[in-house]
């Protein structure tokens, strides 16, 4: 696999590991938050932490699209299929995320709701074309990366006059979430979390560019390095962050220059601006209400907005008692700090959203890294 394998080479990794060990000041620690689940996955999948000195730690951020969606939104998707009889199309990861009352999309499907796993918005559009007598709702989730395809789907539906298709929009925005984390009392006042720098999103930044991060690098005096998703990208970016910290700099640097430009993808941004508008506020699992952190479908395309087409009950569903997903998503706690981790909550029986997707911290810890954990061994004895 040319073009990919070169970012996974062991000898370069060893050399970088040596550079990092030399650069890291043994008199201090470096806590690097990787915002994206894609980075979390790469760190565990390739064992990147093993190549880091002990004083360089990764703090896992909230950038996993299925992890941050609060329970009421999943309840709403189930209601669309259940009560309104719509065909609800969703990406696979969403199927097992716990909803309230021990429900989930996959359980609702087993109980008879018409919920279908799709690989792209195009699949959902095709289902709508093939079944004109049924309402078809695309359950849209994700950060800026998955937003342009949803915009395209809505425009296609409008152009074709596809009356039975609509979108349940849950697209969220990265910069707002990072700012929110940096403003959280745990970070600013209580000092519970110390974050020395950020690995910036890779795919998200390919859309929005690197410029949106300038504000909070300056405002919060934290360095940001936009990093690709390959393990060598992660290591190189960690080294760049360590150097910034050592030199007292807090700049936005771009390690992922092979894809990300300062301005991002103007065509995609124009599409998003045409089809979506900002929500005044949106609830995130873990972060609570975050102002201007999500998108809704613009007035001009209101006919394809599932929230306008269907009456959705306001769900008050809350996370399972004892579930630490909220604190884990803020980087305040580690998966192993949660009492449910590995006891009642495993990937086979997830209680919280972080245990579902391979991009979620708990699932990554459990599936790739738990052999390091003494706690699990003790629990088994």
């Amino acid at each position, binding site marked *: 696999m040319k073009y990919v394998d070169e970012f*996974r080479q*062991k000898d370069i990794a060893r050399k970088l590991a040596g550079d990092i060990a030399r650069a890291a000041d043994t008199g201090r620690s470096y806590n690097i938050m990787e915002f994206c689940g894609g980075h979390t996955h790469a760190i565990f999948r*390739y*064992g990147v932490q*093993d*190549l880091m000195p002990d004083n360089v730690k990764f703090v896992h951020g909230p950038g996993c699209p299925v992890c941050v969606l609060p329970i009421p939104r999943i309840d709403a998707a189930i209601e669309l299929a259940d009560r309104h009889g719509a065909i609800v199309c969703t990406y696979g990861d969403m199927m097992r995320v716990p909803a309230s009352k021990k429900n989930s999309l996959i359980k609702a499907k087993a109980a008879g709701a018409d919920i279908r796993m799709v690989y792209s918005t195009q*699949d959902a559009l095709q289902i709508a074309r093939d079944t004109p007598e049924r309402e078809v709702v695309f359950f849209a989730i994700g950060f800026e990366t998955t937003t342009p395809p949803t915009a395209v789907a809505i425009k296609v539906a409008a152009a074709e006059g596809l009356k039975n298709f609509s979108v349940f929009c849950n697209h969220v925005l990265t910069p707002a979430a990072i700012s929110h984390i940096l403003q959280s009392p745990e970070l600013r006042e209580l000092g519970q979390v110390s974050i020395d720098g950020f690995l910036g999103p890779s795919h998200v930044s390919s859309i929005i560019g690197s410029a949106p991060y300038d504000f909070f690098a300056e405002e919060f005096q934290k360095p940001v390095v936009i990093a690709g998703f390959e393990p060598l990208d992660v290591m190189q970016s960690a080294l760049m962050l360590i150097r910034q910290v050592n030199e007292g700099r807090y700049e936005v640097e771009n390690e992922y220059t092979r894809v990300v430009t300062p301005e991002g993808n103007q065509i995609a941004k124009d599409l998003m601006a045409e089809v979506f508008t900002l929500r005044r506020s949106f609830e995130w699992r873990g972060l609570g209400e975050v102002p201007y952190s999500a998108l809704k479908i613009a007035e001009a395309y209101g006919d394809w907005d599932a929230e306008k087409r269907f009456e959705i009950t306001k769900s008050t569903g809350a996370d399972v008692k004892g579930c630490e997903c909220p604190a884990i998503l803020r980087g305040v706690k580690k998966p192993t700090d949660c009492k449910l981790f590995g006891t009642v909550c495993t990937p086979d029986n997830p209680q919280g959203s972080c245990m579902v997707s391979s991009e979620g911290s708990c*699932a990554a810890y459990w*599936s790739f*890294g738990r052999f390091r954990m003494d706690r699990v061994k003790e629990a088994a004895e």
Partner: protein
Amino acid sequence: MNAMEKRFPTRINFRRGQVDMTHGSGGRAMAQLIEELFVKHFDNDLLRQGNDQAMFTPPQGRLVMSTDGHVVSPLFFPGGNIGSLSVHGTINDVAMSGARPLYLSAGFILEEGFPLTDLERIVVSMAEASREAGVPVVTGDTKVVERGKGDGVFITTTGVGVVPDGLDISGANARPGDAILVSGPIGDHGVAIMSSRENLAFDTSIVSDSAALHGLIAEMVAAVPDINCLRDPTRGGLAATLNEIAFQSRVGMRLNEDSIPMRPEVDAACELLGLDPLYVANEGKLVAICPAEKAAQLLAVMQGHAQGGGGAIIGEVIADDMGFVTMETGFGGTRIVDWLAGEQLPRIC
């Protein structure tokens, strides 16, 4: 003209016809389907007796028996179809005990409206696979369900075999220090199936590895009778199989990612689809675990056989109460290779 031909004045139209409820009703239509399709293609002495069971004298030794239902979607895929798969799958399950497979049975659940031309194609390919393997289908059953209650055809096959004396092969027999071998590149079947799914069609040269492995196994156990475990990594892939054995044997395993054979096309397809090839199904590969000092000899035997040409030693069994299967990654770190959670890819076999 014999009595049989008088019973069915016109022959079944396999080109245009379709399955209807009468084909499973126990009446003349069913008898005709059995005669003109199943008996014709599976043709062997035991089947031709025409009884509801096949009668045979078992050879000396321990008998093994295994059964497997096949629901693969789509029914036809690059490198095979549900028919050949249902023969290979059960032969392999029998053979993973070290046994020589003897006979198969086949149960068909057909959906009303299923084209007879497709059914014939499936039965012909089953018959070919069975003949090639030297394991006849000696008894069978056909049922028909109403349209919408099935998905074309489901096939359940059962196999019996006999284990040569002196073998003790079980998933519970892996010992710390043993070597772990795999017979060739992993992930071909799963990727071939995915490439032919309607909603995910992509062009690839990958074909399913679906194959009967009893010939390879016969040579392996003849050369190295103290093989401890054999298993075919089907659903859940290599990862699931190794975790099952680690659990049964109460041991851990340490793998080396760089030594696990994989075709570049499979690697690339998995990268594109976000799949981990360790979890992707195989239908013509096996995992063998044997004492370390026999590993080189066993590998040489495998590599000398058509079904084991791409074989490799991929890791070792270690003592570990937790039963973790870990892997040194190609990148130089370490990770767990866990059980599969949820469903990576439904209806793969």
